[in-house]
């Protein structure tokens, strides 16, 4: 039933407009609701899911509307060909704006798009090419053979069929390798980057995708209205679309439709009611919309959708699939990671000073020391989160010093985080599947058309295998944030294993774990080592590392205090002093 909803919806789109007694006023309203929904679905992907805010969505809608209007009105191009033109124009525009803002902090995109939106409005309103403030009229209608799609009821079928297609495409995209990357942007960007996701490119994908949906909406608008002018594509319109997304529920594709419906209907009622109340004409509905938006942010930040429709846990079927390719395993005996004279200064502070050590193949090395000794900084230097002031880090003798996290992941280094970084709201197995990001190739188009199913099956079979391996297979479909902290840490290890790493870097894996959980974790790590994995773990819990590691490196004040087997370290007077303090 659930799987066939698009077909049922399409049938409904064809039949419902002909419901006897449906007033033409409602037909027209439903047309606009459908068109807005298409745009807002894009905004959901961008803002609610990707965590970016754009105030240029109405402008992109304008790109689409004007592109098709100019081509069909002035150059006699078929309105149907206006659609690909609209999409290309909006995509190029979004890519240009994205290129200058998406590497910067989030609010630059918002403010940049705000300025661009105002700027475009004045540009279009002042150029003859766009018909200035009056815009363009007598736009030809869409044709099916000789039949003109001018009847609102027929158009309604087209609009809502497009909406169904857009919702299906968006759900497909979100349920794919790149979709998981988009969903990881909000809050989990560093984790995603550590598994090879190029976050700037992923942001760009979401931004361009949202712009393309806006352009489709614009194309539908232009040939429904049969005239265009700058006003509906201005900044206020963009704000209204954002309101739809936030009110409906910016994190849910369904919220887009709910929000578009509510805002359009409320808008219509207010435009009748407020001028009567206030005795003069004007855009008074903006007051109410501003207040609604503020109220939603304060009292229901997730929007209405989650309150109306409770999400159900969906079970993901794991099909058997051929295993993913694995990278060449290193041979025993050689050093896999070599840290040489590493140094990091922050202003006048030396956080890491002349640190050198190595990790051999199939070895567990613990990097320990009291709080503030420089362990975490060292870890950040090795994983590419920070770059060292001096010294080198090498993997198999190849320097990886100063490489960004995705490049280090590509070398086969996987990590976990001191403060667990799983994407909340995403299921455990989807989180683990992010670990296999680099082992798939499918792009956005393949995902939208579901040509990525074979690869996805492989990725999920691998994710399920790793989850089983760490003993959490039965929790695969639970939301990641519903797990206990100890389990979340283990999920992070399963995710790391999905990268098919040669080296595992674990940042305080035992922090916050109960005694029994620590013992299980230690057993798991030992098992991994016995299978040939090399592990470097940063820990301050001496009890946890003592029985586990092959070798310990002790840091204090940023320098290496001691190195050797656990038993020897425990008797080292310098180490005792570092941990217990000076007498």
């Amino acid at each position, binding site marked *: 039933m659930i799987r066939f909803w698009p077909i049922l919806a399409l049938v409904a789109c064809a039949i419902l407009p002909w419901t006897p007694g449906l007033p033409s006023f409602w037909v027209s309203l439903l047309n606009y609701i459908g068109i807005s929904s298409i745009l807002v679905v894009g905004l959901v992907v961008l803002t609610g899911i990707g965590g970016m805010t754009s105030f240029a969505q109405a402008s992109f809608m304008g790109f689409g509307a004007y592109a098709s209007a100019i081509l069909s009105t002035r150059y006699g191009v078929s309105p149907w060909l206006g659609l690909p033109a609209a999409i290309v124009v909006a995509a190029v525009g979004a890519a240009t704006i994205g290129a200058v803002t998406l590497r910067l902090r989030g609010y630059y995109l918002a403010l940049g798009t705000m300025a661009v939106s105002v700027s475009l409005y004045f540009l279009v309103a002042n150029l003859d090419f766009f018909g200035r403030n009056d815009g363009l009229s007598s736009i030809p209608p869409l044709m099916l053979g000789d039949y003109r799609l001018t009847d609102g009821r027929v158009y309604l079928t087209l609009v809502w069929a497009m909406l169904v297609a857009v919702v299906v495409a968006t759900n497909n995209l979100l349920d794919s390798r790149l979709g998981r990357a988009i969903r990881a942007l909000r809050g989990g960007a560093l984790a995603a980057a550590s598994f090879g996701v190029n976050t700037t490119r992923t942001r760009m994908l979401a931004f361009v995708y949202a712009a393309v949906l806006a352009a489709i909406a614009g194309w539908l608008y232009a040939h429904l209205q049969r005239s265009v002018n700058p006003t509906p594509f201005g900044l206020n319109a963009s704000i209204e679309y954002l309101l739809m997304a936030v009110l409906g529920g910016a994190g849910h594709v369904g919220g887009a439709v709910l929000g578009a419906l509510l805002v359009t209907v409320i808008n219509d009622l207010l435009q009748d009611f407020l001028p009567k109340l206030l005795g003069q004409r004007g855009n008074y509905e903006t007051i109410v919309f501003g207040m609604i938006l503020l109220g939603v942010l304060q009292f229901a930040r997730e929007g209405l959708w989650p309150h109306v429709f409770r999400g159900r846990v969906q079970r993901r079927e794991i099909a058997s699939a051929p295993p993913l390719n694995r990278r060449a395993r290193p041979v025993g005996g050689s050093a896999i990671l070599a840290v040489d004279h590493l140094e990091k200064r922050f*202003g*006048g*502070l030396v956080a890491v000073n002349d640190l050198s050590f190595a990790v051999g193949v199939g070895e567990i090395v613990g990097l320990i020391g*009291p*709080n*503030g*000794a420089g362990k975490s900084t060292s870890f950040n230097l090795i994983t590419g989160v920070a770059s060292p002031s001096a010294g080198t880090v090498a993997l198999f003798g190849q320097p990886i010093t100063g490489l960004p996290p995705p490049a280090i992941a590509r070398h086969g280094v996987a990590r976990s985080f001191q403060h667990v970084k799983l994407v909340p709201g995403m299921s455990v197995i989807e989180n683990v599947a992010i670990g296999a990001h680099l082992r798939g190739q499918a792009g956005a188009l393949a995902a939208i058309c579901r040509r990525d199913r074979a690869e996805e099956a492989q990725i999920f079979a691998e994710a399920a295998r790793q989850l089983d391996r760490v003993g959490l297979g039965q929790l695969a479909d639970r939301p990641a944030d519903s797990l*206990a*902290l100890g389990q979340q840490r283990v999920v992070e290890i399963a995710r790391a294993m999905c990268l098919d790493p040669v080296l595992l870097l674990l940042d*305080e894996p035992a*922090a*916050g774990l*109960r*005694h029994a959980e620590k013992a299980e974790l230690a057993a798991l790590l030992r098992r991994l080592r016995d299978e040939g994995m090399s592990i470097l773990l940063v820990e*301050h*819990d*001496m*009890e*946890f*590392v*003592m029985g586990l590691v092959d070798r310990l490196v002790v840091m204090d*004040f940023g320098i290496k205090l001691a190195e050797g087997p656990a038993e020897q370290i*425990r008797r080292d007077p310098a180490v*005792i002093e570092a*941990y*217990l*303090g*000076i*007498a």
Partner: protein
Amino acid sequence: MSVLSVEKLAVSYGAIPAVEDISLVVPEGGLVTVIGPNGAGKSTLLNAIMGVLPSRGAIRFLDRDLGGMPVEARVHLGIALVPEKRELFATLSVADNLLLGGFRFGRRHAGDELDRVYGLFPRLRERHRQPAGTLSGGERQMLAMGRALMGKPRLLMLDEPSLGLAPLIVRDIFRIIADLRATGVAILLVEQNARAALRVADRGYVLETGRVTLEGEAKTLAADPRIVEMYLGVASG
């Protein structure tokens, strides 16, 4: 009368408990230390008393219930926290940092207090024009303590004052802590450096995985072999 009394305090991060069922008392003019290995919940405890973290259980300061009171209101009652990360105003000068420490009095008392703090930390007087962000680790700790003292607190809470400092400076800091208690301010000292902390304190509590596992006279605790075990992870059976 006790300056601070904590009863059955519990703090959780989401569903995960960080500290549970903690009760402790800091008497007037007393120096009480909470020691324990990293991650035991020591900082969490101080942050809960300060109101930075929400908690359950009762916190009473000079017989006044602090339940639900925001951080700044607790400061105005006379509680000061020198946090683990110091939380200085990096771009402001040393003198401005200190002056803001006395924010709760407005400007009037600044002169005398400033002299007193400069007397305790002569290094800060030398550097009073320098931005706080350019100080060394030891100087930062001194500035953080000086800033807290500017507010003339009745209760001073120190979170790992020896953290990341060289042994010589750690000695300095502990000497100053001993001097401070002589001025009558009650001190709650959280430390990883168990030996130094137990030497200056009257009483100690040992925190392990979020619970108090030992408590008593500082001298008695210092001699307890279980503390060494706990820190170095010797299997205790």
